[in-house]
């Protein structure tokens, strides 16, 4: 497949004081790729996302997005050009309703954030509300529309976490452990929804549930001790001895989870 590159990371490293969390990360992401990122705890997966999303600045290296150098672009600007992340721990507006959470995302997309003197009610912004309802029903959350986020179950909040990412209509979506803490049924539900995402969307998924990550990815990157251990086809990763060693060391085997 000869697809165009969308995200290019060259020699990126991150240190906190003397502690080197990530070193010399280099890889190229093609448009529409589904990349699974695995690695033991402390491998630097979330830090890596922080660098991609602009929540942290890298200590070394360069990040390109569609050929543009975005290494020092602030996070909100990256979100606007299409690099959007979700969070490992639910990071929602918990005192607002589900609808309000979603409307904030959608109004940003429509560039309405600077409208000062027109109340955001359905009468004035029917398209916005329609879109929100459409997304909520697609995600099976329509019954929760007017509920306060913190009154929902953990699994539902997790769903909203992912939904807020998707609602921004990103080009590159960085999912950080989307199914963490979910029941098997909830996990299956989310995985099925993730399979319905448009083909042109580039997806990166950090995930500890190996079944989920192998099911969704067409490429796997294994992070270990701040560097890339293996980068390639899921089948190759599954059979890689070093990767197996790391995971067997954690009491889990890649082939067993297939």
């Amino acid at each position, binding site marked *: 497949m000869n697809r165009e590159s969308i995200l290019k990371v060259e020699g990126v490293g991150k240190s906190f004081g003397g502690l080197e969390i990530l070193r010399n990360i280099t890889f190229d992401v093609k448009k529409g790729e589904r990349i699974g990122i695995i690695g033991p705890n402390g491998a630097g997966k979330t830090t890596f996302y922080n660098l991609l999303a602009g929540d942290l600045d890298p200590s070394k290296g360069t990040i390109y997005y569609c050929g543009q150098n975005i290494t020092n672009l602030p996070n909100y600007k990256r979100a606007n050009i299409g690099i959007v992340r979700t969070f490992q721990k639910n990071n*929602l507006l918990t005192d607002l309703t589900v609808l309000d959470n979603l409307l904030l995302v959608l109004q940003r997309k429509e560039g309405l954030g600077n409208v000062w003197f027109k*109340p955001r009610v359905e009468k004035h912004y029917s398209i916005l509300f329609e879109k929100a309802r459409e997304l909520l029903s697609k995600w099976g959350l329509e019954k929760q529309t007017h509920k306060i986020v913190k009154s929902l179950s953990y699994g539902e909040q997790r769903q909203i976490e992912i939904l807020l990412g998707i609602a921004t209509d990103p080009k590159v979506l960085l999912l950080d452990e989307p199914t963490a803490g979910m029941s098997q049924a909830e996990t299956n*539900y989310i995985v099925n929804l993730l399979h319905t995402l448009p083909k042109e969307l580039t997806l990166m998924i950090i995930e500890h549930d190996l079944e989920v990550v192998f099911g969704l990815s067409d490429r796997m990157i294994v992070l270990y001790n701040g560097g890339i251990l293996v980068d390639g086809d899921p089948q190759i990763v599954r059979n890689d001895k070093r990767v197996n060693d790391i995971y067997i060391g954690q009491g889990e085997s890649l082939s067993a989870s297939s």
Partner: protein
Amino acid sequence: MKGNHSIKFLFIFLLMALSPFFLSLFHLNLLIEILILGIFALSLNLLVGYTGLVSLGHAAFFGIGAYASGIVAKELSPNLIATLPVSLLVSILVSSIIGMFCMKVSGFYFLMLTLAFSQMIYSFIHQSTDLTGGTNGLSGIPSPQLGGVDFSNPVFLYYLILLIFAAVFTGLSVLVRSPFGQVLIGIRENETRMKSMGYNTTLYKYSSFIIAGALGGVAGSLYTNFNGFISPSDVYWTMSGSVLIMVIIGGAGTMAGPVLGAGLIVILETIVSSYTNMWMLIIGVIFILFVVFFPKGIVGIGNSLVNNLAKSKPLYNESKPEAVYKKDA
């Protein structure tokens, strides 16, 4: 529900409009003071209640607006067309400068920085004797005029201030419900998330800071026009503390709250101080009681009363038990 609200507002507006006919001059002056401090508290509430930025330096803008009006009225013209816009512009200018620095920090440091800036402005006003009268304050400010109307008549002044109050209240009500206002609420709730949605949160906070500063200046200007006198103690940090107390006791993040808070504090101050010098002590106790037992303020008490009444009626049960996740495919 909505019609209910409109009727309530119409009723309150009529009551306010007719109050000069049944209130004594003393009480009318009290009401004017409540309205002015209500504007002041509303302006701080945009920052504290809606954007989640707790400022302890809001008196700076009140003072700047008040002194700007006073100086213009004395040196140039007491016409409101001159004093109000000058106060507005000067407080916008100063809040945009202070805001640039304050946006660099957050939380506790924001509070300390606003306090530091307001004390700097206090010192400046206190020291610039030629311009501001120093410790003695600025006195002998002529009563405001507009066109041919002289507002030395408190009834005229009352209507003028009621009109400005209504405009500020309505404007802010619409603002906080607008997409812009919803972004501010989003920032109050979770700034990190708002950034990852693509919002330049710093710019939104900065805008909110300037709007709050500008309206604080308007309140200050009205205060000078009403009192004919302004002293440095109105710019001191205790004034910032009072207005913060008004917002919190009334109910931060609501529109009615800060006005009710301003009313309560002004009334308490007037009534209690006529009996005892220890009115500060009493306000302190009330503040503690509110923070501990009613953190959502007067408005919160009102709401929970209404909810309790509603609960005593049988409601249809929305949350009937059902399979938690029946939708797995």
